[in-house]
């Protein structure tokens, strides 16, 4: 028996080749799903709306789903046997669970969207509540003061909590101290802290004793940022810690074996490797803080007019704006509250988009910027496009 040479590729016609992906499902599989669903619906319609005078829609949906599962199991078992049937039924259950989880989220977002758009005009982003009376239309005035307040407070809170959180995460994951366990327990306990306690803490320790004259320790955005930082800190710490733990030890060893110090290793090897995850951690921290209302109640306090200085005077923020407006009796104020909620969601969305962009693979972004740079260089207007990166 000798080995045979395969025929040279040239003898095969390339046109006859079609790339394909192996598939296990057949059209009959799809039809059995559709068929089971239709018969389940029909059977339950008969029971619910013909033989009886109709129970609730929820009961109809639940019974239809259960009937569908039973029918689908029986059909698949008959066609393909027990093993395949169990697999397919579990697939259907898991997929429908995924859909069901999406439903409340989509309903919530849809509701806010529909209600919020009614009162949302472009003026919302430039005006505050100066001169607004209950009888005025919901599109009058705006929430610019709340947007500014939210951005300032969350930005300051990030400034306080990010270095602390990163340092704590590095301590928990990269050091060999015996204090790691107690610190971890404290961080865990902090993440379970009701956020209103954070606000109360700032109120009781800073505002009450020192804030009589207003100023830096009165009701202002700075105090709010401290309270928000307390709520963000455990989120950032724990998320960053988990991400740092995912960095393979081999990389740390490689770095140390080249003569790097531990600090240098963390800074130049561990952080860049965990970059994407760390960005996610920051976004989670921001997302946690940006929607917090309770810590702001007795720190930022809320204010109807624009106050761009976070270090002096009461300040509005978007969650406070929503909270204060929705409690008012007049319909126009309630509509304005929904507009505020919509803007809050948009801001969170924008933050996520920014984080995804920053957290992108560094090499990919460099490749993109190289492409842009070379394109700019080849064009005549090279000088003006230099700052593309």
């Amino acid at each position: 028996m000798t080995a045979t040479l395969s025929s040279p590729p040239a003898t095969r016609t390339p046109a006859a080749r079609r790339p394909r992906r192996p598939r296990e499902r057949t059209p009959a599989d799809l039809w059995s799903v559709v068929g089971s669903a239709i018969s389940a619906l029909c059977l339950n319609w008969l029971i619910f709306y013909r033989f009886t005078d109709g129970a609730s829609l929820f009961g109809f949906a639940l019974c239809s789903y259960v009937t569908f599962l039973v029918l689908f199991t029986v059909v698949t078992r008959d066609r393909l046997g027990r093993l395949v049937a169990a697999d397919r039924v579990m697939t259907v259950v898991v997929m429908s669970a995924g859909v069901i989880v999406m439903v409340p989220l989509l309903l919530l977002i849809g509701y806010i969207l529909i209600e919020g758009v009614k009162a949302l005009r472009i003026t919302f982003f430039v005006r505050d509540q100066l001169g607004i009376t209950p009888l005025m239309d919901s599109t009058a005035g705006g929430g610019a003061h709340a947007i500014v307040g939210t951005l300032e407070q969350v930005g300051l809170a990030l400034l306080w909590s990010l270095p602390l959180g990163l340092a704590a995460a590095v301590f928990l994951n990269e050091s060999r101290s015996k204090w790691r366990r107690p610190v971890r327990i404290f961080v865990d306990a902090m993440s379970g802290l009701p956020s209103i306690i954070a606000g109360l803490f700032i109120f009781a320790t800073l505002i009450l004793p020192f804030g009589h004259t207003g100023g830096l320790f009165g009701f202002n955005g700075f105090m709010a940022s401290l309270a928000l930082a307390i709520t963000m800190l455990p989120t950032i710490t724990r998320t960053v810690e988990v991400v740092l733990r995912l960095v393979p030890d081999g990389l740390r060893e490689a770095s140390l074996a080249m003569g790097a110090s531990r600090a240098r290793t963390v800074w130049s090897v561990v952080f860049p490797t965990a970059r994407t995850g760390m960005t996610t951690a920051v976004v989670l921290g921001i997302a946690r803080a940006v929607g917090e209302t309770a810590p702001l109640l007795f720190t930022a306090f809320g204010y109807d007019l624009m106050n761009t200085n976070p270090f002096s005077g009461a300040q509005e923020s978007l969650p406070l704006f929503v909270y204060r407006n929705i409690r008012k009796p007049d319909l126009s104020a309630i509509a304005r509250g929904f507009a505020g909620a919509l803007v809050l969601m948009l801001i969170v969305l924008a933050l996520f988009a920014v984080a995804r962009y920053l957290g992108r693979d560094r090499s990919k972004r460099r490749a993109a910027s190289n492409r842009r740079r070379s394109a700019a260089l080849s064009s005549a207007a090279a000088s003006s496009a230099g700052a593309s990166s």
Partner: protein
Amino acid sequence: MTDLATSDTVDLTDQTTRSASRPASSVALIGGPPPGAATLEARDACAWFGDHLVLEGVDLTMPAGKVTALIGPSGCGKSTFLRLLNRMHELIPGAALDGHILLDGEDIYENGRRAQQIRMRVGMVFQKPNPFPAMTIRENVLSGLKLARIKCDDKDGLVEESLSRASLWKEVRDRLDRPGGALSGGQQQRLCIARSLAVQPNVLLMDEPCSALDPTSTRRVEETIAELRDNVTVVIVTHNMQQAQRVSDRCAFFLAEENQPGFVVEQGTTHDMFSNPVDTRTLNYVQGRFG
């Protein structure tokens, strides 16, 4: 048998690379290790993990500019011994040691001597290729400079030289800005070798560098070792008898009896170890009768 350049391990296309990269380092580093290969000497080296003695009384000299292979069955302390040589052993919690490791006559475990300084002079290549995933190929090669705070005026030259010495330059010179993780396993391992070489160490430790590689990549790594031996002392742990025979000048055979610490049974030139070993256990091992 000590001559590495046997006809089956070298092909003609690589001869050019080899002769081109033959001269030592042409790129000067500021703050790097002193130039040239260094002699490593272990005197009565012992190692513990917790209360468990894993290595006892190793006396071994690894002469400058030579390749020393550490052979022996798994779990006999070869890797632990290797990690003693550049103070990586102490990074493991609960690890302890005794005895002396001399680098050009100076004890690397002397009180007050900084481990970072030693690790810069004694580089290491690991069993599993571990290029830094967040860095490009070029940055990976230069990472040692950044990590050990070494300055270099001619970084491009250093990248080319290091990659050439690791016989990787031709394959990657057009994609130095691609991430290091995108290379094949064998290329990644050679990138790690290039990374270790960029700081111009006196000694290079290799912990089974070819165990995850295919025969072609293995051959290339072995050629790399052959090229390095003039400028760097190489200590290599290997399970592959043929590889030990091909690449090394000297050999040390480690063995651990059941529940006993590992020790060196026999050491000597590779030729002697493989053709007429003194100890029957060595004979049995190198002939593949156990282990």
